[in-house]
C-alpha cells in the first residue's frame, strides 16, 4: 500500500495541489473554487497573488464549464466528456492547467482569438477589454468573451496553449497559466 504519510510529508509545505479528471458541472466548479480559496487564504499572504490565482481559477473553470456545455459530441475512445483540471504550487508561483475536447471546427476561431490576445500590449489589452465590455451584446454564455482577456491581463504574460487533433472532428485544447508570486 502507498504510504500516504510519506507522500504528505514530502509534498512542499504550504503548497496547493489538485488534479481532477471527469465531467464538470457548475456545482462541482463551485466546490473546487471554494476549497482552493480556503487553502489560498491559509497559505498565500500576498493579497494580489491570492486574488490573481482566485480570479484565473474562476475564469478558467467557468470557461471550461461553458465550453463543455456547448459541445454535443461523445467519443468513448477518448472519454471526451471528461475534462482535466490541475492546480499546483511551483517554484515562485502557481500553475493552473485546463484541458478539454472541442469540435475541430471551433479550433481555428479560438486559436485566432488567443493569438490576437497574445499579440496585444498591456495597454491594448485594456483597450480591447473595454471595447468588449462596452459592447452591449452578451454572448449566449455568461462570460461575454472577456475570460481569456482577463486572464492575460491578470498574469501579464502570453497565454500558453495547444491544440491536438485526435480525430477528424475532435481536438484536444490545453491551456496552461502561470501566476508568479508578487
Amino acid at each position, binding site marked *: 500500500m502507498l504510504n500516504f504519510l510519506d507522500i504528505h510529508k514530502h509534498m512542499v509545505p504550504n503548497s496547493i495541489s489538485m488534479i481532477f479528471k471527469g465531467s464538470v458541472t457548475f456545482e462541482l466548479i463551485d466546490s473546487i473554487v471554494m476549497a482552493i480559496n480556503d487553502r489560498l487564504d491559509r497559505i498565500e499572504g500576498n*493579497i494580489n497573488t491570492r486574488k490573481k490565482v482566485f480570479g484565473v481559477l474562476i475564469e478558467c473553470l467557468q470557461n471550461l464549464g461553458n465550453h463543455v456545455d456547448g459541445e454535443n459530441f461523445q467519443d468513448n475512445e477518448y472519454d471526451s466528456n471528461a475534462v482535466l483540471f490541475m492546480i499546483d504550487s511551483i517554484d515562485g508561483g502557481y500553475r493552473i492547467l485546463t484541458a478539454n475536447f472541442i469540435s475541430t471546427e471551433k479550433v481555428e476561431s479560438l486559436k485566432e482569438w488567443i493569438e490576437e490576445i497574445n499579440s496585444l500590449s498591456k495597454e491594448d489589452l485594456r483597450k480591447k477589454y473595454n471595447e468588449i465590455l462596452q459592447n452591449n451584446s452578451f454572448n449566449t454564455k455568461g462570460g*461575454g468573451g472577456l475570460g481569456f482577456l482577463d486572464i492575460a491581463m491578470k498574469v501579464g504574460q502570453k497565454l500558453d496553449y495547444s491544440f491536438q487533433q485526435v480525430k477528424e472532428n475532435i481536438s484536444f485544447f490545453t491551456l496552461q497559466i502561470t501566476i508568479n508570486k508578487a
Partner: protein
Amino acid sequence: MEPLKIEPTLKTPYILFDASTGIFDIKGMSCAEYAREFYAPINEWLDSYSKNPLSETIVNIQFKYFNTSSAKSLLLLLQKLKAIKSNGYNVAINWFYEKNDEQMIQDGENYSEILSLPFNLKEIEQ
C-alpha cells in the same frame, strides 16, 4: 418604493438599495457564471428609481472579487446611475477596496474613466 434587499451567497453580493434614504449598498462576492440573471432585477429596480430619484444618492460598492461575467452587468448598473446624475441629481459613487488590492483599485479607476463618472476610491477600514 420598496427597498431592494438581497441576501449574499458564496457567489453573489449583498444588496440593499433603499429609495427612502438614497443609500445603495453592494457588498461581497460576485462570481456567478451567469451574473446577468442576478443583476437583471437590480437594474430593473434602478429603472423605476430613476423616474423619481432623491436629490442625493450614495452608492457604496464593496466587492471582494467580481468575475468577467459580472463586469458587463456592473457597467450597465453604473450607466443607469450616471444617467440619474446627468439628469441633475447628485450621485456619489464610493468604490471600496481592501488594503493593497491593486486589481480592485484599477477596476474602479477603469470604470470611472470609461464612464467619465467620478468615483471616490476608499480603502476599507480594518
